[in-house]
């Protein structure tokens, strides 16, 4: 039995397919593209098929009179409280590295993740981020000799 949410998901996926199909038009075509099998061929084919299948998902949902709510408010609330902050933390990690350096960004990201996973003991919130940052620093930057991104702030503070 199809769910009502599938109808919405189908519409979103169809939009992604259409966007990629339109985007394929911007791909340069080589002068001698034989039988239309040039650089645009697979992107167009895949995106068109995605859009068609997504519409099938929508039609299937409507035809079967899909059950359940359009949007599960409870699940959305849980996702907004527990997942969204973590997703934001993942996305701001790189800007944070540019700003404060890898070690500080690691400490802050670990702290945020620990809090979002419900950890409240102070010694866990203190020891785990600092311990993990030091371990990463030693293993990846000292031992494996990776380039350590320092960030803008430490430089500014140091004058």
């Amino acid at each position, binding site marked *: 039995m199809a769910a009502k949410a599938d109808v919405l998901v189908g519409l979103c996926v169809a939009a992604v397919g259409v966007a990629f199909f339109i985007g394929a038009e911007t791909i340069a075509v080589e002068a001698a593209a034989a039988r239309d099998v040039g650089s645009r061929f697979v992107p167009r084919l895949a995106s068109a098929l995605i859009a068609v299948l997504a519409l099938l998902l929508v039609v299937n949902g409507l035809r079967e009179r899909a059950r359940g709510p359009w949007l599960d408010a409870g699940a959305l609330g849980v996702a907004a409280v527990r997942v969204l902050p973590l997703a934001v933390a993942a996305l701001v*990690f790189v800007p944070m590295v540019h700003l404060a350096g890898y070690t500080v960004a690691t400490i802050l990201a670990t702290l945020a993740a620990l809090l979002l996973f419900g950890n409240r003991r102070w010694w866990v919130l203190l020891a785990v981020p600092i311990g993990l940052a030091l371990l990463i620093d030693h293993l990846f930057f000292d031992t494996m000799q990776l380039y350590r991104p320092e960030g803008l702030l430490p430089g500014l503070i140091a004058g």
Partner: protein
Amino acid sequence: MDIIAGFGTLFSSTESLLFVVLGSVLGLLVGAIPGLTAAAAIAMLMPVTFYLEPLSALAFIYTLSKTASFGGSIPAILFNTPGTAAAAATQIEGYPLTRQGKQGKALKIAVIASAIGDTFSELLLIFGAVYIAIYTARIGAPEYFAVYGCAFIIVGSVIGASVVKGLISTLFGILVATVGLDPITALPRYDFGILELSSGLNLIPVLLGIFVISEVLVQAEQRVFGQMTAVAPRSPDPADSRVSWPELRRCLPTIARSTSFGVVIGMLPGVGAAVACFVGYAEAKRASKTPEIWGKGAIEGVAASEAANNSVSGANLIPLLTLGVPGSTAAAMLMGVFMIHGIHIGPQVFITSRDLIYGLFAAGLVSIALYTLIGYFGSNLIGRMVSFVPIQIIYPIIFVTAFISAYAVNSSLFDVLVASVFGIIGYLMRRFDFSLPAFIIAFILGGGAEVALRRTLLMSDAGILILLERPIALIFLAIGLAVVILRLSRPLRIGNGGRASVS
């Protein structure tokens, strides 16, 4: 015998042996921790393999994925919580045995069945793959396209609750694989003027996002920690803690049947151990003369699902090594390790990297021996250790470690951003029942499939109909079609979150 030379290669390298042991032990632990998948662990550890010899790197990843499959049975039996999706059927009979105080018996039959299934599968790989490779080395672009097409159809339609969503996942993987330079004309595609996108998306950041970061997001949402605390008391009767010879003899036909199912399923791209364990279990139950005891603690049920899911492991490598098509997520990651070390995978690998390949097979056999020993004598202890793992601390650590693993690939913060974005995409895909394995396998194979398709279309005036003139291509397309028909006639649901059922 090449395999003896393989043992020679493996045992001549202390580093490789060390990583076989490390991979085996780590795999057992990873498999035994519910929610922590082998795919996530492998994705995080892949950057480490840059710094290892090729054999050590491959053996590490291969043994980790192999033992994780068995490790998943430990919490399934002890706590009614499968460590991996592949152990979901084991809990049906395993946990009732634990409740009767017979957890020792259940764990021992699980390890025996796993070892038998896995060894048979590994031997088939060792002695059979090379003969298939001799044949596949001769096939051309149309046949390769048929192989890729067959793989896409199977991964798209078999995994997941919905065929349509599975196919969308596959096509999305193919589409994402087109980002970067066209493999034939070298013209840029979907790079949006971003320099880092012009060479395409790196495999490891995408893997980390799809399997690790999305897993952390799902765990943050579900917050199902601390459910493995109640361990049933063990029966005082020593007979309940061991498998007697009559019991083993009773299980042997079941193990043999499940192994054959597992091997066949393992050779099909994308189907995997989660399906095998349910097929093995369901067939053993159907064939049983005493079906009334099933569901109440039948040791044949534990043996059936464990033999089936572990016999997938070796067979999974057959399509990878003979055709360059990974049979599972773990095989796809192993393919990534081959690529990292500049080894072109396909039938020619048996000539160009013979020592390495047979060294890897030897590592597989050593790993089976290791997990049999550890599992037979230490499963109970591992289970009790795992029950104390502070999951709510482990996931934040995994979350941040995924960033440094992505960064370590090229010392590029752009890769970290890619991992984050694909983490969110992966979460949404899981949330709405799209298939992550189908996406990742299509992403890996997309480039090769595109080249094969375009070459095929350019080869003949008949266009795609040239496939009808090629018998081998037709065989592969027929396999794909048969699997789809079977899938539609027998509804099968495998959730990304690890819950699976056969109706």
